[in-house]
């Protein structure tokens, strides 16, 4: 049985830290979620455990973290459903050549650079229970991800969501996320093969059957929810519960198949009907609980696993610098060059590269999966968490420098009349 007093106290402390640091970060023109991520890190061994080890041990004893982990996983399931829900294939249809080229290069360049970096890091930060193939593919996937939700929030806060730049960036991020998650699903299967509860053919065959059933079976039935919402302008509690059950069932199937429960939630979100009022209603229903309560727990759980700068030596800082440089060169550089090659003006191409370099909490999700399945070591996890924080933090000031407000105001808001969900 969990120690309820301790669990509630942990949640309260996490909420206070997330809100306070989030507000501080908003004051310096950073997205609130950036502050929440930093708050999670500050509650772990990187700060609290370092300056007040006894308080840290009393507040977050290792034995109590299982409950915090479980709650944060529930939050992630809902969050991944919302991420999938917010993705609209129609945006991709209207994206054009530039967005397609940028998103593809924005995945391939960091993936290949991440794999090259793996040649150097594998003998230094991994061990022989992980094969080089699994390690390199994971590094590639982790380097290529873009934080679709954080990006959407930055664009909205900067009034860029409905501009040509914003539409292109959000389209590229959507393509990156979908591609990145399917690559990651493959890597999870690859890494878990050989010791999974089910044979590999069951995982692969079952996954194909599951995806086919979702796309051609469940998807046809989902417009029921949309029609219900159209008629009554809301969903009853029973209908909402049915929807949550579908998300949970999809997550359970992918977890049983040996992929990961988050893929099931993500796929359920992507196949949901995309009528804007219906999507907005569902986001409104789920976002408050997920973003205010459950995601900060995930950030804290991540922070408790990361030991940034603790017991590290100069080599660790060298590896950290290398990872950050390669991540930025691959994602920012790759996306910028691709956008320029597709005919986008330099300044706008640079802005797209900066936006695509935002890794945010999607990176933290992937890194936690990597640590859970053992494909990355605790030290590499901490390095990659720091990289995620740095690349997310640099987005707003760099964007302001390269693409200042006066230029944004000058750009014709040619999409202003469209309903961008």
């Amino acid at each position, binding site marked *: 049985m969990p120690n309820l007093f301790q669990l509630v106290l942990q949640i309260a402390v996490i909420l206070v830290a997330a809100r306070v640091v989030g507000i501080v970060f908003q004051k310096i023109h950073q997205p609130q979620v950036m502050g929440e991520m930093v708050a999670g890190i500050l509650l772990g061994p990187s700060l609290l455990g370092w300056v007040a080890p006894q308080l840290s041990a009393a507040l977050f004893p290792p034995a109590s973290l299982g409950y915090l982990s479980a709650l944060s996983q529930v939050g992630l399931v809902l969050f991944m459903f919302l991420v999938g829900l917010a993705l609209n294939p129609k945006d991709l249809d209207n994206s054009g050549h530039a967005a397609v080229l940028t998103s593809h290069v924005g995945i391939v360049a960091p993936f*290949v650079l991440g794999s090259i970096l793996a040649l150097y890091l594998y003998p230094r930060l991994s061990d022989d229970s992980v*094969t080089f193939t699994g390690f390199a593919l994971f590094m590639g996937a982790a380097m290529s991800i873009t934080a679709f939700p954080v990006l959407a929030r930055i664009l909205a806060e900067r009034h860029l969501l409905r501009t040509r730049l914003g539409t292109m960036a959000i389209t590229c991020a959507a393509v990156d996320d979908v591609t990145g998650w399917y690559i990651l699903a493959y890597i999870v299967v690859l890494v878990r093969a050989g*010791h999974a509860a089910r044979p590999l053919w069951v995982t692969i065959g079952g996954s194909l059957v599951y995806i086919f059933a979702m796309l051609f079976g469940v998807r046809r039935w989902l417009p029921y929810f949309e029609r219900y919402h159209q008629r009554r302008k809301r969903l009853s509690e029973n209908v909402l519960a049915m929807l949550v059950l579908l998300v949970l069932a999809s997550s359970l199937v992918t977890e049983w198949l040996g992929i990961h429960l988050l893929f099931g939630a993500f796929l359920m979100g992507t196949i949901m009907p995309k009528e804007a009022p219906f999507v907005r209603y569902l986001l409104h229903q789920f976002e408050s609980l997920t973003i205010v309560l459950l995601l900060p727990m995930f950030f804290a759980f991540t922070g408790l696993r990361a030991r940034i700068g603790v*017991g590290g030596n100069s080599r660790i800082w060298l590896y950290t610098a290398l990872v950050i440089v390669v991540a930025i060169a691959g994602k920012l550089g790759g996306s910028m060059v691709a956008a320029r090659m597709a005919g986008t003006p330099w300044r706008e191409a640079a802005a797209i590269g900066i936006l695509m370099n935002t890794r945010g909490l999607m990176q933290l999700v992937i890194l936690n999966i990597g640590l859970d*399945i053992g494909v990355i070591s605790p030290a590499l996890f901490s390095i990659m968490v720091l990289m995620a924080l740095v690349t997310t933090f640099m987005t707003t000031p760099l964007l302001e420098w390269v693409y200042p407000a006066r230029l944004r105001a000058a750009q014709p808001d040619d999409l202003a009349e469209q309903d961008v969900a």
Partner: protein
Amino acid sequence: MGVPLAGLLGILEAGRSIAAPMSVGGDWVLEVDPAACPSGIARLRQPALNIVQSGADALVTLNDGRAAQMPATIAGAVLTSTALRADIAGKPSQRILTGTLQLDGCAPLAFRATRQEPVRKSGD
């Protein structure tokens, strides 16, 4: 797409020849002669060793109630820390440690350790 894919395959092929340090991370169940150091062994709770590994560096925690942590290094097939020296043997999924452990007030104690759960990793 062909060039990056070929490049990626080349990287994966090149990486197959790179050796990583032997895996010792996880919880270890210790087998020792109980008569060798009765007071020290009485304090141990199984799994008696927890090792967190990142490359050739590791952090060893002895489950003796005090949870003292010792930095350790892996060089070849040998794990070394201030109070422990062990030879590493076996495949990653069936790894064993054999060596000596220094407990307070006792002479170095010979031990054999097996990883509690098979490590949940693999690859190709």
